[in-house]
Structures are given as structure tokens and as C-alpha cells.
């Protein structure tokens, strides 16, 4: 599969600060989550992809265009939803989206038609005629999202798209992003601090820390544990069951949610668990293959890199 983003030894320095430090990255079509603690270089990377800041060294191509020289062509093909609360004061919601379309070269009348179509898609009703200045944070997020997709871009860069949204709106927005990727063939790069969002919709995950790419893997690979393991919930007292498992030479750990994680390199692990339950006289309520949580992966990756792993 061809890479949409290809970065080779990219560095970006601001005086003494090195925001990006020798980044090598290949991003394939699909939805990619960009994670990293504050100050990891995510915003700099996005601005560099938009052609708004030039890399100090290295080569970068985005959608087949050179980031250094062909920023305009790149920006013509992408939709960007900034994290900041940015809007043009004095415009109604629909005018703001129409204006974004005009800035991308859509003729005025067509842009208005398209703005209405996109706002319908985003489930914004009569509020679209109100001034953007009077909108709540969540409504502004929707206007920013609508502005990012009004010109039907090939690639979407969404910076904290769900921040400020209530749970229902958040779910709807994630559904829209998923739909754009699965049915319309759009590729999406989501920079976010909300790990469940990444877990919910992303195909790949990139973790940046201290200006370096620490991890770039498909989400399914990250979820896979190092050795076969199960999450087990039992109905009765779990202590005899734990003792029985430990005597069977498997690794057992208790989780805060009252479940047990049972791991062993043995291929007959599930059989061992059922035997232990039989011996200790407990009933198994659930037995599911264990997965790494994204939070664990994130924290361990950032900790390995020497970062704080703070994720607000």
C-alpha cells in the first residue's frame, strides 16, 4: 500500500528548541491516530504537513507532493480542523462554512449549496443561521469540522476534533469520521489526547514524544498481548481459583475491575483455566482474550522514551 505521508529524517528547530528530531514516518490510507504528550511536536508536525512551516532538514512528501515546495497543492487537497477556537467574527454558521468553501476555490453559489449540504450531514439545523460568535464550544467544533470537509478533501487532518463535545455529539462526530473513511475513501489523521476516540475509530497509531516517533503500528497489533492471555471473571471468591492457577504454572494478576488476567506461553491456557475452576469449585462468569489497552501502550511507550506520559 502506498504511503500518503512519507517523512525521512525530518527535523524542525526553533532557535535552540528541536521540535521534531529526525522523524521517519510512513502513513498509509485509513484513519491514523497521532498521540503524544504536550510538547511532543504534534502541532509542529501538522503545520509542517500543511506547508505552513518548513522542515529544517530532511525530506517530506504528503499526498505525493513535496511539503517544502508544493504546500499550495497539498492545502488544496486536504481539510484541516484546528484545535484552537478559531472563527470569523460576524458570520453566521452557514456563511462561515460557505466562506471556507470559497477560500478553497468553490464558486460562491455552489459553495452556499454545499455548505447547507454539509451542515445537514453534520446535523446542524436552524442554528446555522445564528452568528458563530454566539455558538457554544461544541457548535463551533461542528462548524470547524464542516469547514474542513466542505471542499471534499482527499485527506483530513483533525486536531482534537471531539474536545468540547458532549458524549452524544462526540459519538456522532466519530461516526461521521468513520463514515467518511469507510464509505467515501477519505484518509484521516487525528491528533488527540482522548485515547478512547483513537481506540474507537483508528486503524493505525503514531506516538510522538520529545520530537521523535516512538511507535507507529496498526491498532490491532498494539492490542495484541505479548503472550496468550485471558481476562477471567468468576462468580465466587477468587482466592482458591488464583491458588489453583498459580499451582498450574501460569501467571495471574488481579485487575482493579475485579477480573483476573491469566497469561502463559502454553497453547492449552484455556484448558488450564477451566481445570483450575473445576478444582477450586468456582464458576467462571466470563473468559475473554485479554487485550492491551491503548492507555497502557501509550504510557509505556512514553515512559520508555523518558517522557512524562501526561495525557490530559
Amino acid at each position, binding site marked *: 500500500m502506498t504511503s500518503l505521508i512519507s517523512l525521512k529524517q525530518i527535523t524542525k528547530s526553533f532557535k535552540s528548541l528541536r521540535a521534531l528530531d529526525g522523524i521517519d514516518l510512513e502513513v498509509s490510507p485509513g484513519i491514523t491516530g497521532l498521540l503524544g504528550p504536550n510538547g511532543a511536536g504534534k502541532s509542529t508536525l501538522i503545520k509542517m504537513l500543511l506547508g*505552513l512551516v518548513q522542515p529544517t532538514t530532511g525530506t517530506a512528501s504528503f499526498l505525493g507532493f513535496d511539503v517544502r515546495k508544493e504546500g*499550495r497543492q497539498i492545502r488544496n487537497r486536504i481539510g484541516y480542523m*484546528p484545535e484552537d*477556537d478559531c472563527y470569523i467574527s460576524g458570520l453566521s454558521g452557514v456563511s462561515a462554512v460557505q466562506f471556507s468553501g*470559497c*477560500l478553497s*476555490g468553490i464558486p460562491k453559489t455552489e459553495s452556499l449549496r454545499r455548505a447547507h449540504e454539509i451542515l445537514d*450531514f453534520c446535523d446542524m439545523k436552524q442554528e446555522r443561521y445564528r452568528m458563530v460568535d454566539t455558538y457554544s464550544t461544541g457548535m463551533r467544533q461542528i462548524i470547524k469540522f464542516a469547514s474542513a470537509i466542505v471542499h*471534499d478533501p482527499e485527506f483530513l487532518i483533525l486536531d482534537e476534533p471531539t474536545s468540547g463535545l458532549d458524549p452524544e455529539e462526540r459519538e456522532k462526530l466519530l461516526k461521521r469520521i468513520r463514515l*467518511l473513511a469507510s464509505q467515501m475513501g477519505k484518509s484521516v489523521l487525528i491528533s488527540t489526547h482522548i485515547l478512547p476516540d483513537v481506540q474507537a475509530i483508528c486503524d493505525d497509531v503514531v506516538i510522538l514524544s520529545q520530537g521523535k516517533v516512538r511507535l507507529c503500528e496498526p491498532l490491532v497489533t498494539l492490542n495484541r498481548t505479548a503472550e496468550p492471555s485471558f481476562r477471567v471473571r468468576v462468580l465466587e471468591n477468587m482466592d482458591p481459583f488464583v491458588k489453583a492457577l498459580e499451582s498450574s504454572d501460569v501467571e495471574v494478576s488481579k485487575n482493579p475491575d475485579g477480573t483476573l488476567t491469566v497469561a502463559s506461553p502454553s497453547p492449552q491456557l484455556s484448558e488450564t483455566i477451566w481445570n483450575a475452576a473445576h478444582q477450586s469449585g468456582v464458576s467462571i462468569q466470563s473468559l475473554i482474550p485479554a487485550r492491551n489497552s491503548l492507555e497502557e501502550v501509550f504510557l509505556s511507550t512514553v515512559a520508555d522514551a523518558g517522557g512524562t506520559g501526561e495525557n490530559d
Partner: protein
Amino acid sequence: MPINDVGYRSLKSKTESSLFQWLAICRIGVQLALKSKWVKRIMLAAWLPVTYWAAGFFFVEKAIVADQLSAMGQGVDLNQLTSLALTESITSRFSIFPGVDDLQEVSRTGDIPQIRNTVWRWMLMTFFRYPQAILILFLVGFIAPSLISQDIRSRAFLLYFSRPISRLEYIFGKICVPSIFIILITTLPALSLYIIALLMSPDISTLPQTWDIPMRIIIATFGLVIPTSAVALMLSSLTQESRFANFSWFAVWGLGHGAWLTIVLATSLQMGLPLFDPQVMHSETVSNWSAISLYNCLGSLQSYIFGFETFAESWRGIVALFGITTFSMTILYRRVSSPM
């Protein structure tokens, strides 16, 4: 799902040439500026002087036609010319205005085409220099300060520059906003006055006698638009608060002109003559310091464009305007790039 919700569809329409995206920036700027009641009031007020000047053209043409008729019957008596009486009346009333000497001089020649051309130019120059220049000060003061400062404040920069738009296109689009309003209150009324004057003249031969005037009007417009828009947008780009830009705009005009008026006052006291006496106004000190006022610089440029000052007389103002414009554009360009 609402009946009109067709879901997400690919965009089929072709995009416009990327050369015209500045037009969208300009259009939205004009649309937002027109929401202000004060802008609408100033626009309306800007057309009121047209009636006064149109009446002036009527009397000028009446005088010239009277002279032409008397010349046809009994030859020209230079001392009896109605147009001479008119220009003498003008020069006595507006003795400190630039170009009055030229008016007096040409009136005494009895050359009707020359008189017409000079009087029309002088009237249009005063139209540009006095009522319209003052209205421009207020109009630009209401429109321009928020153009960039509000984009900085609301971080709309990211919305613009994540699109296929360059910094120059952004600046050009923004400069076009005050420029359009300036054109609406100067060029259009001035060209209307020219057409009114043509219609009041006796025949079509007036057109070749005055063909240069529309050109001068257009050049004078550029002379007004570029420096004023550049200064106003530069001030707007320096702050997030449009009221600070607004205050700075009026301060730039007020302080410069106030300082020059102080020099005029000091000179008049020194010479023992009344304030604004022609001798005071044409004194070396007052002329040398006139370039500290942006208003005087623009006036000087207008006088040069309408042919009432030579380059030697107006170079200070022209050089000052060029310097101010270059400085403003440099700062503006740098400020627009800095949020990135």
C-alpha cells in the same frame, strides 16, 4: 433524518482558478464592514459634497458659455470675462488653497479650453483633498482596524492559511476592502462630477479638452488608496484589539497634523501675521515641515497628480508617503506570517 439530508456526497463542481481566492477574502470583508451603521452613514455623507461641487460646475460652465457667446459677437475683452470674475472670486475666498495662482493666470489668457481644463482640475482636486480626504479618515478608521486584528484575536489565521492561499493573497484581499470603500467615496463621485460637468458643457468638443481628467482621477485614487490602506492594515496587524488599532489610526493622523498646525501657529506668531495667512502658509518653515502630516502628504500628492504642484514642490510629501507605505507593507507582511 431530515428529508433534505442527503448524507455526504462527493463534490462534483470544478473549483475556480486559485488566482481569485483573494476575492472571497475581500467580499467577506466588505460584507462585514457594511454591517456597521456608521459605515453606511459615512458612505451616504460622502455623496453630499457632490451636489455642492455639481453646482460649482454649473456656475463655471455658465460663465464659460457666457464668455464664448460674448466673444462670438464682439471679440474678447479679457477684462470683461465672466470666468475671470468667477476665478477671482474663488481665489479671493480660497487664497490658501493650492493652485489658485494657476487659476488666476489661466483666467487672464482668455483661452477657453485651457480655462475649462484648469478650473475642472482644480475643482476635482479640492473635492479629493478636502471633503473626501476627511471622510476617508473616518471611513477607513471604522473599517480597517478590525480587518486583521480580529483575525489574530479569533485565530482565524488558521482558517485562511490551511487553505490554498498565500500571505500575499491574504494581504491583497484585505487591502481591497478599504480600497473598495475609498473608491466608492472618491473615484465614483469624482467621475460622476466629471460626467455632470460634461453634460453641462455646450458641446462634445469639451471631451478632448478635458480627456486627461478621468486619468488624473484614477491615478489620484491609487495615490489615496495604497498609503491609507497600508497604514491602516499595518496598525491592525499590530494588535489583537481593534480599538487600539482604531485609536492608533486617528492618532497617526491627528498627531502629525496637530504638530504641523503647531508649526503654522508658531510661524504666524513669529511673522506677526494671522493664522493661515497665505504668507504664513507659503513660508519656507511651514512648507518644509508639511510632510510630518499624513494629510498634507496625501494633499501634496493630489496637487501633483492634478497638475497644481511640480515635483520639486511636492517631493517631500511624495517621498514621505512612499516611505510610510513601504514601511507599513513590510511590517504587515512580517506580522501576517508571525502567527504561523
